[in-house]
């Protein structure tokens, strides 16, 4: 994991001093509301429905046990004893008091954490693959590059007042667990005959205009990463729209110019910029890679490891054996090192808002990380926590400990592993509540055998079209809308992000539903899937194969029959 040097520490210290001064000037009335607004946003501070919300950066999702313990103590001392994991791998506090925030920031800095650029019209915290460094399908570990981009983008003087927010994601695997094609810039690390480099995507995004990114460059040599990013950002900073905030993201600029013209502008800019940026030399990259070297794994023979895994639960009672095996199946995953597995601690037990975690739980996660996973964890886009390096012979012990604290809901990657934004209960932007809808779905689909039978399924719920839960790239997406002051919910089907080639934005199935009708509607959709699937065919595959019509017909029978009547009438 990256460890701060003296310069990192000094900069953080100076940033806190700057923000302390800004907060004091604001509270004294010396700094106007509209001037304080972008300054506080660039320090992660929103003014929300009930209280300020402070977003803490978790660079590419990595957290150490000491950072977890600090987050726990801050939750206790400055908040109401819990915090929230976001869909961009960050942490949010929902109830801090404005005047205590400079002190809170000082505490965060003690564990090398901050809130810099977690909000506002600037380059946001860089996200990456929660399984970086351990995934079997990884070509190159993206974290050293993510850290280099973090440093390059942090306190960047030229790009702090962009037309709109700007998000960069980096992945180094075949499976895209960072949704890079739905970011302003998506970087896919590749190894070619020209060496290490990036496929560069641009202009993807979610929100009210979900767009899959365009390919900007098939291969960018590693050494040119920062100068090329600068060229893209400069082109956007100067040409992006500033007259309408809904048209200000880079995706709109790319669409308006067309990808060819946009590419030409960036390439021209790059040729000019290049000479003024140092190349990212081999030595710099290697120095950074050392921070992310593998931990000291124990040696296991593959066969022994498999045998251990098979026999782990032999001494458990039958029903515990079953629960453990379900957990192994859903909440643990393959690891590149024989004898190790990745373990997802579920933060989605029924009745708890997705991603919420208490101070006590944070302390426990820190202990589990120290005991079983080299003292580190990762936050995920799905709002869970991953212990990335667990030896197979520790799995049972880990499961037994984690169970006591509610982390072992064996639903990872299933229907009830719902990704959900804070919604109308907390967020000032929301049109509708999202947390109660998620809970109603979890309660309705509580038969785990049925849920397992449905297999891999992504269900995401956003309380407004800003789409923080990423509903538009979910197999089933639910979007809260406001109709004359009442909350309704649109359903989308067929979104996906995990595969670079087939990633797509979901489509709305039809008129929206009331909150109370959502579980029934979902039941109808799932029934169509169960009836129509071929052997081992996944939900998303069925949707792609059959299209939306069969789902529409089942969801809106009256409409379908009146359409048929009209068609029949025409024929006569």
């Amino acid at each position, binding site marked *: 994991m990256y460890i701060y040097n003296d310069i990192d520490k000094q900069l953080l210290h100076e940033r806190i001093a700057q923000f302390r001064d800004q907060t004091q000037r604001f509270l004294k009335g010396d700094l106007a509301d509209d001037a304080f607004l972008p300054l506080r946003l660039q320090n992660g501070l929103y003014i929300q429905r009930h209280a300020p919300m402070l977003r803490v950066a978790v660079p590419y999702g990595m957290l150490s046990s000491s950072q977890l313990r600090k987050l726990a103590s801050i939750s206790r001392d400055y908040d109401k004893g819990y915090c929230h994991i976001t869909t961009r791998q960050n942490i949010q506090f929902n109830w801090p008091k404005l005047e205590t925030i400079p002190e809170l920031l000082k505490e965060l800095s003690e564990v090398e954490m901050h809130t810099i650029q977690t909000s506002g019209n600037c380059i946001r915290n860089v996200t990456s693959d929660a399984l970086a460094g351990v995934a079997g399908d990884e070509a190159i570990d993206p974290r050293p590059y993510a850290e280099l981009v973090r440093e390059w983008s942090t306190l960047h003087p030229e790009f702090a007042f962009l037309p709109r927010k700007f998000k960069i994601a980096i992945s180094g695997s075949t499976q895209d667990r960072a949704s890079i094609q739905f970011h302003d810039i998506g970087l896919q690390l590749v190894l070619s005959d020209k060496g290490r480099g990036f496929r560069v995507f641009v202009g993807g995004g979610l929100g009210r205009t979900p767009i899959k990114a365009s390919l900007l460059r098939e291969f960018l040599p590693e050494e040119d990463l920062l100068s090329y990013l600068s060229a893209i950002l400069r082109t956007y900073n*100067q040409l992006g729209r500033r007259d309408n905030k809904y048209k200000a993201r880079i995706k709109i600029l790319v669409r308006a110019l067309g990808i060819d013209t946009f590419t030409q502008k960036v390439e021209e800019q790059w040729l000019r910029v290049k000479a003024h940026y140092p190349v990212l030399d081999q030595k710099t990259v290697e120095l950074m890679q050392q921070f992310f070297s593998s931990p000291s794994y124990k040696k296991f023979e593959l066969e022994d490891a498999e045998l251990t895994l098979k026999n782990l639960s032999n001494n458990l009672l039958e029903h515990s054996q079953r629960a453990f095996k379900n957990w192994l199946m859903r909440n643990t995953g393959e690891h590149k090192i024989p004898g190790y597995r990745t373990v997802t601690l579920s933060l989605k037990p029924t009745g708890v808002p997705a991603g919420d975690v208490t101070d006590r739980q944070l302390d426990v996660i820190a202990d589990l990380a120290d005991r079983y996973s080299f003292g580190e964890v990762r936050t995920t886009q799905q709002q869970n926590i991953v212990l990335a390096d667990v030896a197979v012979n520790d799995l049972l012990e880990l499961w037994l400990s984690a169970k006591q604290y509610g982390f072992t809901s064996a639903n990872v990657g299933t229907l009830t592993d719902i990704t959900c934004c804070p919604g109308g209960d907390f967020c000032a932007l929301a049109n509708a509540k999202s947390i109660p809808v998620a809970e109603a779905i979890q309660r309705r689909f509580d038969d785990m055998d049925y849920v397992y039978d449905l297999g891999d399924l992504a269900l995401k719920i956003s309380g407004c079209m800003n789409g923080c839960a990423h509903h538009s790239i979910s197999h089933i997406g639910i979007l809260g809308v406001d109709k004359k002051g009442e909350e309704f919910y649109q359903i989308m089907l067929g979104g996906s992000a995990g595969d670079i080639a087939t990633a797509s934005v979901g489509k709305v199935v039809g008129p929206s539903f009331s909150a109370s009708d959502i579980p029934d509607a979902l039941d109808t959709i799932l029934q169509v899937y169960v009836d129509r699937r071929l052997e081992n065919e996944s939900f998303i595959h069925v949707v792609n194969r059959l299209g939306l019509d069969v789902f529409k017909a089942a969801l809106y029978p009256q409409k379908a029959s009146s359409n048929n009547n009209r068609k029949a009438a025409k024929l006569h």
Partner: protein
Amino acid sequence: MSDINSTVGSSTKFLVKHSTVCDDPWANTKAVKNSRYQLVTIDQWLASKDYYSSNDLVLGIHLLGEYYIDDIDILDHLEVFSLIEVEFASFTDGRGFSLATQLRQYGFKGELRATGDFLLDQLNYLQRCGFDAFEFDAQADITVIQEALAAFSHSYQSG
């Protein structure tokens, strides 16, 4: 484009260059007859390049932060100007930051001055984009300005 000499240098403003208060030789170009110091708009410059390029003048040019460098024809003439003034229409409009960075990258060595609507809290970034002079309203406090200019002692960006 309006004639800007009439507003520049009014007594309600003061200039800070290289972190110290200093006189603005372009301030009274209207009042002083035959002053060598001239501040022109881009239109004035384009209309009478030859006249303004004459050696007798110490030339400044006024740009708006929103200008896209490819649309203004001055890159080949940067050495003619002793001053480039970039006016910010709004502190949230960051285009002037890119304009300034590019002017420096393309070799402008003279005074690069920020005017208009920018915040004290942006001074350090503006300075790092290449601005070395800033125009303030009379009530601004020089100690506060100096502190803001020095807000950060290091930076991650070498380019």
